[in-house]
C-alpha cells in the first residue's frame, strides 16, 4: 500500500518534471503566463499612482493567477499534436496521473513566478504581514488556478492556440472584477455578484490583506472559499478531461 502510493508519487513527479522541462520556456507559456500580466499591471500603473505596497500586491495577485493557469491549457493539445499522448498513456500510468502531473507543473510555475515577485517586493522594501499565510495562500491558489486552466484543455482540439485564446478570453475579464485593481466595494453594484464567483477574488483579498491591510472578507472565508473552488474545479476538470482525452487519440 505504502509502496503503491510512493510509486504513484514517483510517476507523477516524473511526468511533472517532463512538463516543466518542455513547457516552462515555451513562447506561449512565457507570453501568457508572465509577460501579459506584467503589461496589464504596467498599463494600470501608468494611469494611477498607488503605493509600492499596493503595486506589489496587484502584480503578485495577477502574476500568480496567470502563471499558474498558463501551462495546464496547452499541454494536452500540444501532446496531441506532437503525437506523444498515446505513447505516454500506454505506460503503467493512468490519465489521472498525467493530469495531476500537469497540474503540479503548472502550479509550481505559479509558485516560482510568485516567489520572484515577493523577492522584488522585499528588494523594494515591502513585505507581507504574515509569511506563512502568504505561502499557504500562494500554494492553495496556484493549485486552484492550475485546475482552472485544465478546464480549457477539456476541448479535444489539437491546436494549442485555441486553448490559449480561450483561456485568455476567460482570464482577462476576471482580473477586472476580482478586486485586484479596483476594490470590490467600488465596483458597479451589478458586477459584484460576478466577483463573488471568481476564484481570483479570494486570493487577491488575502494578498491585499497581507500587503496593505485592506480586505473584504476575513482570511478564514478567503481560504475556505478557495479550498472549495479547488476541490470543485479539481474534480470537475479531471473528470471532463478524462472523458475527452480519449477523443484525442
Amino acid at each position: 500500500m505504502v509502496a503503491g502510493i510512493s510509486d504513484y508519487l514517483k510517476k507523477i513527479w516524473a511526468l511533472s518534471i517532463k512538463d516543466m522541462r518542455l513547457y516552462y520556456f515555451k513562447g506561449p507559456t512565457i507570453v501568457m503566463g508572465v509577460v501579459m500580466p506584467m503589461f496589464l499591471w504596467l498599463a494600470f500603473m501608468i494611469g494611477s499612482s498607488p503605493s509600492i505596497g499596493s503595486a506589489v500586491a496587484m502584480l503578485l495577485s495577477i502574476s500568480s493567477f496567470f502563471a499558474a493557469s498558463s501551462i495546464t491549457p496547452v499541454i494536452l493539445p500540444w501532446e496531441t499534436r506532437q503525437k506523444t499522448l498515446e505513447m505516454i498513456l500506454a505506460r503503467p500510468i493512468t490519465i489521472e496521473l498525467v493530469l495531476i502531473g500537469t497540474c503540479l507543473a503548472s502550479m509550481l510555475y505559479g509558485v516560482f513566478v510568485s516567489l520572484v515577485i515577493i523577492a522584488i517586493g522585499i528588494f523594494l522594501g515591502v513585505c507581507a504581514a504574515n509569511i506563512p499565510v502568504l505561502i499557504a495562500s500562494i500554494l492553495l491558489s496556484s493549485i486552484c488556478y492550475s485546475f482552472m486552466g485544465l478546464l480549457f484543455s477539456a476541448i479535444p482540439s489539437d491546436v494549442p492556440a485555441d486553448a490559449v485564446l480561450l483561456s485568455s478570453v476567460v482570464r482577462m475579464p476576471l482580473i477586472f472584477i476580482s478586486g485586484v485593481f479596483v476594490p470590490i466595494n467600488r465596483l458597479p453594484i451589478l458586477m459584484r455578484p460576478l466577483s463573488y464567483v471568481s476564484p481570483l477574488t479570494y486570493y487577491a483579498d488575502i494578498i491585499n490583506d497581507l500587503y496593505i491591510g485592506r480586505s473584504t472578507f476575513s482570511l478564514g472565508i478567503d481560504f475556505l472559499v478557495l479550498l472549495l473552488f479547488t476541490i470543485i474545479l479539481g474534480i470537475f476538470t479531471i473528470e471532463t478531461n478524462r472523458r475527452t482525452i480519449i477523443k484525442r487519440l
Partner: protein
Amino acid sequence: MVEAIGLYKSFGSVEAVRGVSFSVSRGEIFGLLGPNGAGKTTTIRMITGLLRPDRGRAFIMGIDVHRDPIEARSHIGVVPEVSNPYVDLSVWDNLVLIGKLYCIPKETIIERGKSLLEELGLYDRRSSKAKTLSKGMRRRLLLAMALISDPEILFLDEPTSGLDVFSARKIRSMITGLRRNGKTIVLTTHNIDEAGMLCDRVAIINKGKIIAEGTPDDLRIRYGKYIEIKVLFDNSIDSSVLNEFRDHYNVTCDERWVTIICEKNELDEVLDKIMNIKHRLDLRIKDLHIESQSFEDIFVRIVRGE
C-alpha cells in the same frame, strides 16, 4: 499471456471491431494482418487498456486490463502506430522518462538504456534532441522506450510501415532477437511478407473481424493449394483454342502469354493439355513459369472472401 475475448468497438456508426477474440501464448510472435481500416489499431488499443471496448474483455498475464490497467501495463511495452518521442528531449532523456514511469532503479535504466541504444544503432545520438532524428531513428527510439522496462510482452502497431529499408531491417532483426530471448510479441502489419517472415501465428483481420488464423504455413497450405502456370508461345494464339481449359481452370490469354491457375494435383494434366495445343498448332514454347501463389495472393483471396 495475452487474451482477447469478443472485443467490440464502434465509433458512432462505424463498427471498427466486431467480435475479435484470440490468445497468444508465451514466447510467440502473433501477427494481426489486415488492410488499412481493418480494426488492427483499435484492437491493440483495447488490449493495452487505452480504449474501453463496448463489449468483451482483454487480459494480460491473467490481469483484466480494464480492471487494473496499471498492473497490466507494467508487464508490457507498446509502440503505438502513430506516435513520437518528446522531440524537445534528448534520446537519452526520453528513455529515462519512460524508465521512471515503470519505477525502474536508475542504475538499471542506465545499463539497459545503453545496451538498447547500442543494439538499435542510436548510442552515438544519445544526447541529440529527438527532433533531429529521422523517422526511422525515432521509431527505433520508440522501440527502445518500449523495451526499457524489459517487458514480458511487446505490442507493436505497424512497426515498420513507412520506414527506410535500413530501419525496417534493424527493427525486424530486433524482433527476431527478442523472440529468441523468449519475449511474447503482438504485432500488426498490412505487409504480408513481413507477417510471413516474422510471425509464428497470424490472424487475418478484415472489417473488424478475424477471418482466418493459423501459422503462415497453415494459411499457405489451406489457401495456397493453387499454382500459376505461365507459358510463352512463339506465336499468338486464338483464345478459342483455350476453351477446353475454361471449364476447369482459370485461364487468361494475353497475345503469346497464356496463364492458367490450377490446383497442384492437376499440374500433370494441365501440362499435357498445353503440349497438346503446342503439337496441334505447331507452336514452340519460348518460356515457362510455374509458381506457387504468394502469401500476398492468398491474403487477397481471403479478404475478398473467395
